[in-house]
């Protein structure tokens, strides 16, 4: 199956109001071309699920700068004063989720689990509105699964069928998000022939990836 297209065509599929998961950690491991194209096409009213909102003009911070995000589900906004200002002014709704909990909620969404029980946040403000369940005398928060309409994924390599591998700390949320969205668009640094990534090295199997974006290609 031939899954390669340009960032422009890939982003055309995304409607205003979409729920997007975008990989990256303070911008590291974020699919830059796809983010730039979201800004260029001016997609509005987006819900962003990501680790953070990076920095102004960096990674998904560009979406914040352009005012395209109406809701963000992230673990911190500490590196982006623009997000903090938009939150205080009411321009953006921010749901803060502990980072490990965010990872598990995304993983649960992609794995068909309804949720997980975590000790993180018990007794703190992160527990507000959540069910607490005791197992053998230990309290846990019930944290529910997260899903998205689209996941935008950065990878080190893809083969033409869509198998992905990642590089070092740019892996972060990418493989988790690649499982948790209805439509998955991956932006690899390189595309290699099928068979070039050995089975044990594939992190995201091709069946999860709907479209590959070729770097700088005009197809």
């Amino acid at each position, binding site marked *: 199956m031939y899954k390669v297209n340009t960032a422009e065509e890939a982003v055309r599929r995304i409607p205003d109001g979409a729920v997007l998961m975008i990989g990256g*950690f*303070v*911008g*590291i*491991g974020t699919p830059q071309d796809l983010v730039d194209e979201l800004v260029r096409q001016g997609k509005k009213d987006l819900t962003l699920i990501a*680790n*953070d909102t*990076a*920095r102004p003009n960096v990674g998904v911070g560009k979406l914040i700068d352009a005012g395209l995000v109406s809701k963000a589900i*992230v*673990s*911190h*906004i*500490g*590196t982006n004063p623009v997000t*903090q200002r938009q*939150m205080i002014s009411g321009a953006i709704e*921010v749901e*803060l989720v*502990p*980072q*490990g*909990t*965010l*990872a*598990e909620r*995304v*993983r649960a969404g992609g794995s068909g689990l309804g949720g997980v029980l*975590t*000790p*993180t*946040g*018990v*007794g*703190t*403000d*992160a527990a507000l509105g959540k069910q607490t369940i005791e197992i053998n005398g230990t309290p846990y928060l019930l944290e529910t699964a997260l899903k998205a309409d689209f996941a935008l994924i950065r990878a*080190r390599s893809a083969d033409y069928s869509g198998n992905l591998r*990642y*590089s*070092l*700390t*740019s*892996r*972060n*949320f*990418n*493989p*988790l998000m690649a499982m948790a969205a209805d439509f998955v668009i991956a932006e690899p640094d390189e595309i290699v022939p099928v068979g070039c990534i050995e089975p044990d090295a594939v*992190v995201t199997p091709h069946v999860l990836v709907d479209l590959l974006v070729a770097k700088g290609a005009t197809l």
Partner: protein
Amino acid sequence: MNEKEIIARRVAQELKSGTLVNLGIGLPTMVASYLPVGLDVSFQSENGIIGMSALPDPGLAGGNLTDAGGTPAGALPGASAFDSAMSFALVRGGHLDVTVLGGLQVDEEGHLANWMVPGKIVPGMGGAMDLVSGAKRVIVAMTHTAKGEPKILKTCSLPLTSVRRIDLVVTELAVIEPTDEGLVLREIAPGYTVEDVVAATQAELRIPVPPRFMKVDPEELR
């Protein structure tokens, strides 16, 4: 030595060979620079690596390896990389021996607050809640006061990071251990007195007699 150096040097003495350690962004990151020679500690960074080294070697390829703050980092032989779910499985699952975190407030219960100041700054908890809940040992590395105001209080006024009792607070004035009997003043920094520490602390301190002094100069440690 400035106050941050004092804190970082003292925290470094808490680390033991064969352990996995997570250093928070900012002051805690400085701890790596003061490790005793030959100490075999592995550093985990929550963005997905064990075996991080503080500085990248010149010419290291790409921008795909950073610490949790996005600063370029290196990796030592034997390093491993993984996704965020695995990273926090290590934290939450009891596989992380020590986390060193900054703090806004610590109270007599040993509770830490370090993720928001309501109405002022709401950076978010990032990985802090998982780290404090999950690490076997939590060390808070922070200045003793902020703009003259004590940060070690009877009760935290800011939202807590966790209800778990942290294990040690290291400041430029003192080493304080939260225990069942309250906060125990374990060490006083050189140049300070018990009275100095008490004056800068709102919480009640249990003070052993005679007080012990902090060793932060490598010369003293030999």
